[in-house]
């Protein structure tokens, strides 16, 4: 029952597809951002797994950069959500599909 690279990759894939489903199906913008974070985490798992089973630290370096980008993305994303909420009183993506407000 030894755990190998495939296990981690499949776990990563499962996590990613859950995130993907959420990001596509959900209507609340904050939840969509949360699902995107799940997807980024899934990618991170894959990266670190590659790094572990390939004895190459580049994977972890990439994971660090992904975290940085995720942080930046969340900051800007949430700022947008709040800005939209302020003018439209909603964060429902199906109701904020106008290009202008």
């Amino acid at each position, binding site marked *: 029952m030894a755990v190998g690279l495939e296990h981690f990759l499949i776990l990563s894939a499962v*996590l990613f597809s859950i995130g993907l489903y959420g990001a596509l199906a959900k209507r*609340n913008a904050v939840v969509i951002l949360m*699902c995107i974070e799940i997807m980024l985490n899934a990618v991170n798992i894959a990266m670190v797994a590659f790094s572990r089973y390939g004895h190459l630290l580049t994977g972890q370096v990439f994971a660090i950069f992904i975290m940085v980008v995720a942080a930046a993305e969340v900051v800007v994303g949430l700022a947008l959500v709040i800005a939209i909420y302020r003018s439209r009183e909603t964060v429902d993506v199906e109701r904020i599909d106008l290009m202008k407000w």
Partner: protein
Amino acid sequence: METGIAISFWILAAVMVASALAVVWLRDIFRAALFLVLCFFSVAGVFVILGADFLAAAQVLIYVGAIAVLIIFAIMLTRETQRGSPSGRFRFIAFLVGLLFLVTVTLVVVSTDWHAITEIPAEPTTSSLAQALFSGESGFVLPFEIAAVLLLAAIIGAIVLVRER
């Protein structure tokens, strides 16, 4: 050692997937966000299994300590908890897409012959990670600096976006 890792892996994987599903499923956004925290935390656990100790700490620090809290904060500011998080019209299509993706990737993962090295690498990664990031030849000094600039830009951008005019 091996069994220990295997046990931890399966537990963590189960928790991770379950909490990710809860994030997608739950209607109460606040609870969804709490499950997101749990998911992040179990990812950190997986990092520990993979011997990436520095990354595990960074994961907790950045995702749990900062991003999750930021999300919770946004939830409170937008006050959308009463409405919950309903699914949209494309729920079924989204499900199909997700499933398709999962099947494809799984097939690829299973069918590929990974040249995986199973023995455990030298334990502490912190200093070697620093070497990999900053060493002269193959280093990532420029991307690192760019990442810092990106963060700065994101912070300023967020302030500008949210600022009242």
